[in-house]
């Protein structure tokens, strides 16, 4: 019997491990070294090629436009920053996270149509030592690593990348390609972290619009919180506990193999943008079905990844010095997780509409409403209608060095909410500070309400080299 549940299954972890290309069986130090070595190699190669042309005058980076003036073979630049963030629970008075992260990125542009971008990070979370948990202390990972072939009418973007579609400020119905990173699900009170996917994005400028064709040959799935993490969903925790107690077996189902496909046609016109979106792919978080495992003569909860199709329309309209944003999506055969441990496929209709406007000089107000509804028979544990609002209200002070505000999301149906007071201060171009308070609540088994003990204050420092 799997001791810690399917999420700790080494095979599945190997698939979803964000250290793409670096075998997990290798010691952590070797993976870390490889990551650093790749960065240094890329940087050195680019610098060497650039310096080989030192007989010619220094030229400034002007993209591919000023090629007559450019003398360098390659334009190369890099940046890095160090970030430390502490999130302290106001409920348990223990840290939720104490993440230290070094982030580096480099971009290389050739004289021709080729360019490349690589970003990655090395991080450690000291808070894992303060609780009983299966979480790892350190991670070394690529965030993005892709090659771009840029021609006048056709661009190819190949590799590990983020592809964000849709117009909504939060609760997007059309942003379905990149999985949510559930290890640390709330980037802010109204946005989440995403994982990059290996994809080929062919972008055609048709003159009257922009056509994107996306192929994700190897599906990537959401990284779920490890056992003991403050962000471990309650249902998953119960399942893992039942597994540990020998009451139930959790296991991985058939591996997902289908290539994910997406297409977007976007029109840009005076005053408005309009996009038609199609995506056929996976719900990136696993769904569980209850059965009986005859080999161990015990009930089995099998995790599976199911496909669905999304047909969506998104629009952004400039009106009266403000922007109206809207999305409407029809998700065919979307897999819902029922509380009876079964997967129920329903057609889900999602509408999101928002408005944002600057007032005075720097006061920004963003407001958005959302309404989701599925058809067919009721799914146990899932409200047929889910609707609510999200908002952001912020201003800048002290010559725009300080950005302060409040943002959040509230489900009118379940009364789940997340509210964040935030302050970000730029001391100079290198040193940034942030401090804030995040408040969560709602239904005990709600998407947000289940984390109601994760109310926390946070403070962070970021230094750009």
């Amino acid at each position, binding site marked *: 019997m799997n001791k810690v549940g399917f999420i700790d299954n080494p095979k599945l972890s190997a698939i979803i491990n964000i250290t793409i290309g670096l075998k997990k069986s290798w010691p952590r130090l070797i993976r870390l070294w490889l990551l650093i070595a790749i960065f240094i190699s890329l940087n050195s190669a680019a610098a060497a090629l650039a310096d080989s042309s030192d007989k010619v005058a220094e030229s400034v980076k002007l*993209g591919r436009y000023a090629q007559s003036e450019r003398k360098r073979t390659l334009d190369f630049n890099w940046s890095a920053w160090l970030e430390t963030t502490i999130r302290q629970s106001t409920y348990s008075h223990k840290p939720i996270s104490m993440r230290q992260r070094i982030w580096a990125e480099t971009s290389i542009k050739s004289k021709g149509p080729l360019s490349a971008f690589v970003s990655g990070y090395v991080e450690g979370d000291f808070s894992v030592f303060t609780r009983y948990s299966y979480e790892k202390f350190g991670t070394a990972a690529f965030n993005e690593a892709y090659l771009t072939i840029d021609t006048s009418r056709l661009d190819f973007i190949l590799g590990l990348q983020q592809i964000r579609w849709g117009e909504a400020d939060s609760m997007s119905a059309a942003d379905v390609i990149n999985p949510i990173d559930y290890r640390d699900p709330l980037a802010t009170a109204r946005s989440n972290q995403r994982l990059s996917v290996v994809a080929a994005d062919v972008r055609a*400028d048709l003159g009257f619009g922009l056509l994107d064709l996306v192929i994700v040959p190897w599906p990537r799935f959401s990284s779920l919180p490890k056992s003991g993490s403050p962000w471990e969903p309650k249902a998953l925790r119960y399942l893992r506990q039942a597994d540990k107690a020998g009451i139930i077996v959790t296991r991985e189902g058939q591996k997902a193999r289908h290539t994910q496909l997406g297409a977007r046609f976007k029109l840009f016109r005076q005053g408005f943008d309009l996009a038609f979106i199609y995506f056929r792919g996976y719900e990136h978080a696993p769904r569980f079905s209850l059965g009986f495992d005859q080999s161990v003569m015990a009930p089995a909860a099998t995790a599976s990844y199911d496909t669905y199709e999304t047909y969506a329309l998104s629009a952004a309209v400039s009106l009266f010095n403000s922007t109206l944003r809207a999305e409407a999506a029809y998700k065919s055969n979307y897999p819902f997780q029922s509380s009876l441990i079964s997967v129920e496929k329903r057609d889900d209709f999602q509408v999101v509409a928002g408005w944002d406007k600057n007032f005075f000089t720097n006061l920004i107000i963003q407001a958005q409403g959302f309404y989701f509804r599925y058809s067919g028979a009721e799914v146990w544990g899932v409200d047929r209608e889910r609707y609510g609002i999200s908002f952001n209200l912020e201003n800048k002070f002290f010559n725009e060095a300080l950005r302060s505000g409040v943002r959040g999301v509230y489900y009118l149906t379940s009364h789940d909410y997340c509210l964040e007071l935030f302050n970000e201060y730029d*001391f100079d171009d290198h040193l940034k500070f942030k401090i804030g308070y995040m408040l969560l609540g709602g239904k005990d088994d709600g998407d947000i309400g289940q984390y109601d003990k994760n109310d926390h204050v946070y403070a962070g420092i970021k230094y750009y080299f």
Partner: protein
Amino acid sequence: MNYIRSLLFSILILSIASIVWAADDPAIAGKKLAQQMDDVDNSVDSISSGVMTITRDGKILTRSFDLFTKQIKPNKEEERVLFVFNEPAEVKGITYLEWTYQGTDKDDDLWVYLPSESMTRRISGSSMFSSFMRSDLANEDLKNMDDVEEYTYEIQGSETVDGKDCYILTRTAIKQKDTQYSRQVQWVRKDNLLREKIEYYDKKNKLLKTMYFLTCDKIDGIWTTTKLKIDKADGTSSTVVDWSKIQYNVGLKDQDFEQSRLHR
């Protein structure tokens, strides 16, 4: 017969008077001057790089960017601008694409590409009051420098500034709600029609800041400002913008200003 002759003579005198009066009308002459200033840059497209140095509270902030422009329609009816930021690290890769339309009938279109989120977003024009990358330039200063049709003008005389003979030209936005300034007073050099300095007044008619055009050069046959400085009236902050690598008429294509350009 004498009556008809007298009538024709009167019409002639009145016509000459009205022409002379019109030529002397400071508003008409002001707009004509503004048009001539706008015509100084008769390029179809341009590329340039800028470095902005902001001195504030004892700290120095630096921003660098590349700028690409193209006239899409004749007579500057429609212009497209692409801003690509290189420094500081936090904003590197952020790109603004702007389609501007002459006159007050059409609102400009503006998109921003945020590399950290891999996302292109349409943004609204009301952020024009905000400062440009924390500098002493407002977004509207950059946008509206040469849009003749969005202002009324008045020549208020002449004055010598730093040894240069200048017109004093006041311009006032037609749509007052779209600007944070009540008026701008410009000193315009008579020799090359470049600005020498601009004073910006807020809605209470109090001096907000002054922009000084420090150096200029004739590049590809076009008189061009290559360095300018903005001083806040209260003395708390100043910004210097150095332009370099300026080239005109390099053959940029229309599709270089489409949304397909908004990526890393």
